[in-house]
């Protein structure tokens, strides 16, 4: 983990909500995955969500850009409520970047085309300008020299950095990370986390589902612990790791921080 952290050059959240979730429930068939989520995320706030597998943390962030549909309660993103209105959903998706565990780059397009696709077709940016933006963000994730290659020719860590750059090209207001380092070989985790730390330093609103507790300690404003579809505990990283309140949190931390 990098020693120079986002905290060293602190950007504090602004007291305006970016995302508001009220009493939100979701079922997969009969299975009650999310059981009453209440969560407000401020602009420029960085949140890390952890918890055992099956606790609903991925489902929660996938509800924020409607990759999953919630069945009860309310989700408001940047002032727009998520309903079945497809136009609103597309508007929100364009503002909310998402990075997946398995990168999900488009294998039939080269790296620049992967990045420029969203701006060209969703934002209607001219092709040349979109490609310039793509190159700018590729520089930013330190991978500009691979611009003309295809995703299959890159390593996992490189692909994940491209995926982050692809989201950034849409100039999102929020970035969602769904276990971005879980599918990577150990030696590639750092290069991806470093890119995320840089992003944090620039004041991006971030919601990160991860098991990288070092990242949580150094970058998050708030760490949430989820279990059985509920947010059990949420606190500053210092309090969360030094002084966990709930037994389930203590048990979880004792299992992962050996």
């Amino acid at each position, binding site marked *: 983990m990098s020693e120079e952290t986002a905290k060293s050059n602190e950007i504090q959240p602004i007291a305006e909500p970016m995302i508001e979730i009220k009493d939100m429930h979701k079922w997969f068939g009969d299975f009650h995955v999310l059981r009453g989520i209440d969560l407000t995320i401020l602009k420029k706030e960085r949140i890390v969500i952890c918890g055992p597998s099956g606790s609903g943390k991925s489902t929660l962030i996938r509800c924020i*850009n409607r*990759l999953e549909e919630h069945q009860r309660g309310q989700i408001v993103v940047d002032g727009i409520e998520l309903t079945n209105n*497809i136009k609103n959903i*597309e*508007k929100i*998706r*364009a503002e*909310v*970047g*998402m990075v*997946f565990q*398995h990168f*999900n*780059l*488009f*294998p*039939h397009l*080269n790296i620049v085309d992967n990045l420029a*696709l*969203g701006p060209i*077709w*969703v934002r209607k940016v001219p092709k040349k300008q979109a490609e310039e933006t793509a190159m700018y963000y590729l520089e930013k994730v330190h991978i500009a020299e691979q611009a003309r290659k*295809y*995703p*299959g*020719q890159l390593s996992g860590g490189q692909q994940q950095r491209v995926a982050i750059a*692809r*989201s950034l090209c*849409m100039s999102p207001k929020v970035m969602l990370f769904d276990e971005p380092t879980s599918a990577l070989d150990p030696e590639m985790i750092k290069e991806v986390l470093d890119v995320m730390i840089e992003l944090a330093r620039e004041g991006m609103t971030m919601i990160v589902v991860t098991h990288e507790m070092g990242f949580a300690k150094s970058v998050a404003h708030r760490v949430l612990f989820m279990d059985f579809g509920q947010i059990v505990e949420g606190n500053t990283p210092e309090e969360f790791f030094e002084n966990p309140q709930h037994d389930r949190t203590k048990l979880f931390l004792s299992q992962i921080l050996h």
Partner: protein
Amino acid sequence: MEAYVQQKPGEVLKPPVTSVGVIGWVKSNLFNGWFNSLLTIVTLYFFWKVIPPLVRWAFIDSVWNTTGAVCRGADGACWSIIATNFRFILFGFFPYDQQWRPLIAILILCGLLFYSRDRNHWTKHFGYAWIIGLVVMGFLMRGGLFGLPSVEPTQWGGLPLTLLLSVFGLTIAYPLGVILALGRQSKLPVIKWLCVVYIELIRGVPLISLLFMSSFIFPLFLPEGVNFPSILRALVAIILFTAAYIAEVVRGGLQGMSRGQYEAAESIGLNYYLTMRLIILPQALKIVIPPTVSILISAFKDTSLVVIIALWDLLKTTQSVLSNPEWMGFSREAYIFVAILYFLGCFSMANYSRKLEKELSREN
């Protein structure tokens, strides 16, 4: 301690003579083991028995430009049946002095198709060239303007008819099949079930019965005086039939796409149409090139079934030459000739699909 490296470092030995070169190839491919050696010998014997007589029949003893009576006396193949009748085989009942028109139409079509092979040529201007080409072909076939005598579609036959049914049938059936495949995956139950019912109904009946229905039953439902040319009705039947099969193949390709590709496309804000057009279909259609081409090839050959609704396609014109008493009995030669024409069509499709697959796989 034992020495593991006995040769001088860097020394490279040549492989034994018996494993490289001609001897090596023969040994490893033709005579590797007693069973393969036996197969090689049997096959060589078979070739020796079959090929020389075949060459003698087809080339040495054959006659090329004579009457049927002379042919009957000859030992070899009677290619005269083709030489004498090729204009009827190729163009059917198209007026004899006007047959340069379908010939030029075919040449234009083949030229356009050949030029389309290279995907770099797919520009807007080339699209216009296609449209102009199609109009010119239609004008040449139909006539009736600028002093060209009009030729009724009922007189079209032979190769132009086969090409017309297959080229237009297949190029319209393909996008229709893709739309049906997407419809079958739709979340809207009405669209989904319409597509399922359509696909299963069409796949449940043979092409022959569809052709019958389109030419004999369908006109009964039309109001008095409205009539479609029978070529158009056959074309529609072929399109509807082929599209159902293509739909199922494309559905297979769509199911091979991972959920993550849809999610990635949606998460950058692409709508359904753009997700399909830019992300899903380019990948899914590429996966199913081989089975798609199989369907297109078999549909091309199935166009010969239009015989049963009295259209004179290539196969039918050939058969009718054979019913002429002068040429009766030379079916081998006649059928070999049509087989070669069909083979050229099928082989170029197969060849193009291989080229396309190679180009697309180079991309990733």
